């Protein structure tokens, strides 16, 4: 009982307090957001260690048992050790400024020129950018599938996409320059963006807001319990 009732009680009380906090600017309600934000940071600091330990455990286990794809786990362990050593121990092989203790020096591992900084800019950053760059290809392949005129809705999507794309580039107005003033392809693209798109987005936003209110109410009232795990 304790495992379910206590979290439900805490959820209800905290949820209710945060709802009324929005309308009461007086202390102690005023500082609640800052206090909770600090608490979350503290919990996160502990949770990240749990996460790291879990990652290492899962990876080492894979390597030990030679499971399928264990080589990737080896890359994880190697990268983890390399960046940790660069972050924690770089003063051991880097020139220390005069008057700095090792501890003072170690605190500045993020500064330009450090090993950690080198890893960030020459290993992490290019890899991350490469991943992001693949998005262009994913957009192309998704567009190819989405823009096939298989139904009325898909045809409508294709036409809208066509108009918006041509309306967004200078060549669009050159190719369709013969259209009357006010009906240029860029004007139609603007209309698509500002009228039907905004109307649709607002309808979805209203739905989302109502959904959030409804979910919050279910959580505060203890009707929603699936997130609590086991039932006892």
């Amino acid at each position, binding site marked *: 009982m304790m495992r379910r009732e206590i979290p439900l009680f805490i959820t209800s009380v905290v949820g209710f307090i945060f709802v009324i906090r*929005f309308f009461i600017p007086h202390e102690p309600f005023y500082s609640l957001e800052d206090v909770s934000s600090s608490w979350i940071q503290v919990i996160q600091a502990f949770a*990240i260690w749990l*996460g790291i330990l*879990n990652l290492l455990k899962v990876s080492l286990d894979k390597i030990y048992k030679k499971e399928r794809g264990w080589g990737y786990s080896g890359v994880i362990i190697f990268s983890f050790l390399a960046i940790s050593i660069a972050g924690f121990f770089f003063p051991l092989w880097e020139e220390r400024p005069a008057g700095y203790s090792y501890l003072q020096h170690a605190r500045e591992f993020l500064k330009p020129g450090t090993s950690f900084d080198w890893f960030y800019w020459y290993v992490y950053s290019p890899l*991350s950018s490469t991943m992001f760059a693949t998005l262009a290809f994913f957009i192309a392949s998704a567009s190819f599938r989405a823009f096939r005129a298989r139904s009325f809705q898909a045809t409508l999507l294709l036409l809208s996409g066509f108009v918006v794309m041509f309306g967004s580039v200078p060549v669009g107005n050159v190719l369709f320059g013969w259209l009357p003033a006010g009906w240029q392809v860029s004007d139609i693209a603007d209309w698509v963006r500002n009228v039907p798109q905004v109307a649709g987005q607002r309808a979805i936003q209203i739905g989302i807001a*109502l959904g959030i209110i*409804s979910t919050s109410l279910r959580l505060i009232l203890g009707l929603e319990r*699936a*997130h*609590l795990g086991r039932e006892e």
Partner: protein
Amino acid sequence: MRKPLILFPLVFLFLFVFASAQTPPTPVDSLQAVDTPDDAGGQVDLTWKPSPDEGRAVSPVIGYQILAAPAADSTFVPIGTASAGATSVTAKDRLENGRPYYFKIRAYAMDSSYAESEVAGPVVPKGSWWNTKPAYLRIVIWMVFVVGFILYNIRKAGKKELYIRPIAGIDAIDEGIGRATEMGRPILFICGLGDAAQAATLAAFSVLGRVAQKTAQYQTRLIVPCYEPIVFTICQDIVKGAYLNAGRPEAYNEKDVFFVVYDQFPYVAAVNGIMLREKPATNFYLGQFYAESLMLAETGFEAGSIQIAGTDQLIQMSFFIVACDFTLIGEELFAASAYLSKEPEQVGSIKGQDWGKVIFAGLSILGVVSVLLDENLRVHFFGFFRKLMLNE
């Protein structure tokens, strides 16, 4: 003999400029100090008419210093500044609730000469127990109305069975689990990149609990790679609890709910790798997603998975609609858990949510009509709706 004659006008000019620059500026006028309304206290709103010397040619006023003191005849200390052109400021430093304060504004000229205003006060800063701004009052009205409606439907649900429109995306959740079971391939569940405080992540937790319970019953493997460390610990507990509920605690594999990395693109790389290696039969993307949404969904498509997605991020929703088989649009993500539970009270909350949408649609129509109608009629008849909708 000619040199003194030349120097004379230069000396005169120097003395003229020097004398002008040393003239202190005219102080600000009509200084008023009032306790800042609708705040936590410790703040005072100051307003004044600016010094007319802000625009003078020589040594104009370049700024103001806010001075405060506990008594009119005691020493005033600076507690803040305001730039030239400002006519108001909220003083918030070093002011304590329940103590009287007097204020002065010191106008500074470019040559460091200054002039102080009349004293304003006393003002006693204090906190407000209720936010009286009209916007907040409107929110209260809306909230009472919408919440009341949902609560009414929850209460009503206990008495009779309510009809809920079929939601294809949610119905597909069971199909997806069944498909994975038949194919003997795993299910991949991704809770997004949001933290545990986000409503979309909370909705994802609820669906995860129900999916995990079914995978435990059907003995289907469930893989949950997590992005956020707190979300990871919660997901572990949810899945473990669901396997225990289903009476199959031994089937729970803790290595299948794991933390990946707290960084967007490395997370995408890792999850895409899992998809291509494990070839899951069904992928769930529920929660908050950003640029990674399309990368994940397209890789899932390449891997031949059936994909069910739901997010509260509008832009990413369009990517999911294009790349996934089923997408929970808008409030459907938040209704999913209640819909799957079939519990009357939870279903009642969805009903209330749907009626809320109907009312908002009706109000939107009234708003459009009020804008199109004649000005006088609009003001008299639809003025209330217009004010409500447009925050006028």
